[in-house]
């Protein structure tokens, strides 16, 4: 079938456009494994990686604490302005990242400038929606009647939530939290504005590139890709 064949060829360009850079950077780095080893002993790199992992994890935890209750309310209750709340949660996706940084600084000023709180603030703003939406979908997939039956058997609403809804929605919530974590660690633009220091790995990639060029920034990039892809595979 010529039409489908032609469509498949058009589509392949896009697939290759994503696949080739992934393969290319690993191949190039494999030819330069000394640099990779050296990077693994670079204190700055280790500290930056630790900062990235810590802040992304903190972001995911905060998103869980606030986003899971919100997701439950969105899944179970109807209230005025619900669709506005829904829309608001998705707004951060479309705002330019540097503008997110400016917005946060305008609002919180020095409290978040160049500290861990600032990194987490930037990350949370751009990534919380993943946890909220996943939690909501997870709770929507739990038959409400299970909670009703639990309540007629004597469970309070909180108890029914903790012993029925939460454990059943857990897989969906977990994948939402992983997406939040991944989106958080991928953020650059907002963090550049709010908190250049303490240095995170994704910012350090930029700094090494600006100061020492492509070869210097490549090993850290490869490390970050490995972290991201591992998470991605876990998610699927």
């Amino acid at each position, binding site marked *: 079938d010529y039409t489908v064949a032609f469509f498949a060829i058009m589509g392949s360009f896009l697939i290759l456009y994503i696949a080739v850079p992934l393969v290319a950077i690993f191949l190039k780095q494999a030819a330069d494994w000394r640099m990779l080893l050296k990077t693994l002993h670079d204190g700055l790199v280790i500290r930056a990686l630790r900062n990235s992992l810590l802040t992304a994890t903190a972001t995911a935890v905060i998103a869980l604490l606030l986003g899971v209750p919100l997701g439950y309310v969105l899944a179970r209750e109807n209230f005025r302005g619900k669709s506005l709340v829904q829309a608001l949660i998705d707004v951060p996706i479309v705002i330019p990242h540097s503008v997110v940084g400016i917005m946060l600084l305008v609002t919180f000023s020095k409290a978040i400038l160049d500290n861990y709180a600032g990194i987490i603030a930037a990350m949370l703003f751009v990534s919380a929606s993943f946890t909220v939406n996943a939690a909501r979908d997870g709770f929507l997939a739990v*038959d409400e009647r299970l909670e*009703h*039956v639990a*309540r*007629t*058997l*004597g469970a309070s*609403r909180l108890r029914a939530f903790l012993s029925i809804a939460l454990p*059943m929605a857990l897989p969906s919530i977990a994948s939402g939290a992983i997406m939040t974590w991944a989106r958080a660690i991928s953020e650059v633009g907002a963090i550049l504005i709010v908190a250049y220091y303490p240095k995170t790995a994704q910012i350090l990639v930029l700094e090494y590139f600006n100061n020492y060029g492509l070869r210097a920034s490549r090993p850290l990039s490869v490390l970050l890709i490995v972290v991201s892809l591992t998470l991605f595979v876990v998610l699927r």
Partner: protein
Amino acid sequence: MLRVESVSKDWKEFKLREITFDVEAGEYFIILGPSGAGKTVLLEIIAGIITPDSGGVLLEGRDVTRLPPEKRGLAYIPQNYALFPHMSVYDNIAFGLKLRKLPKQEIERKIRDISEVLGITHLLRRRPKTLSGGESQRVAIARALAVEPRLLLLDEPFANLDVRTRGRLIVEMKRWRRELGFTALHVTHSFEEAVSLGDRVGVMLDGRLVQVGSVGEVFSRPASEEVARFLGFENIIEGTAEGRLLRANGIEIELPVEASGRVRVGLRPEDVILSLEPVRTSARNELRATVESVEELGPLVRVHLKVGGIHLRAFVTRSSMLELGIEEGKELYAGFKASALHVF
């Protein structure tokens, strides 16, 4: 034991209107109605999941209308059983007992006892997903009865089961009731369940409870035309009676009893017999009819007929349809005994 008083509720596409009835302690009460009548909404109001717009629910004389479900002391089994899929059968049954903080041995003993009565001892380690429909229903009943509820609410408990399992569970349900002595409110659209299990039956149509009484009473003396229709009197003929003769829209029908003035009579479509030639006997009404349309219902066919100015529906089997050559426009004779008529 349970008193539902003038309960009204608009909920999604359902509208409950002024529902009032009592269930006595130890009674098995059936609410019979077609799907869409609002039976589930009524159960959820009694269980405390939905709050009524007006009216109240009394349990043993106490008004529980505003009480949350966990404070009402009754058990609810929804149509899909709602077993907790992430717990074993044992933990499902133990759920209510653990909430009551009973000691572990006490819980084990109670589960052993109820499992034996319900014949599910061999299933206790299994996950709900691995159970058959009949097994799931037994587990759901065990979980509900384990907490010794004052009242058991059952929503179409046998609707999703195959014929054999259903028949067996209905028979067993009678035994469990004898052995455990619970009070039950059971909603269903099945006449079979109503006849087999119900001490009393309430007929629910379109959000209203239109007749309450013993099973025999309701089936033999429907209180109104719409109950009659629901119980299968699909033909309702209105006319003027004079003695034992009814005149309706140009046709004459012999009645089983004397009457006078405007009357309506009900006739079940299965009591209408179709034939190609007239077979006049003394006991029988026989009328020339034209087939308007034909509706297949599995092995049975509902024939829509035009008789003079009125419409009649008759059931025939698929083989009779073929033998009689029934299709639109066909002319034939429709007969029925006077005794098959129910005068309102």
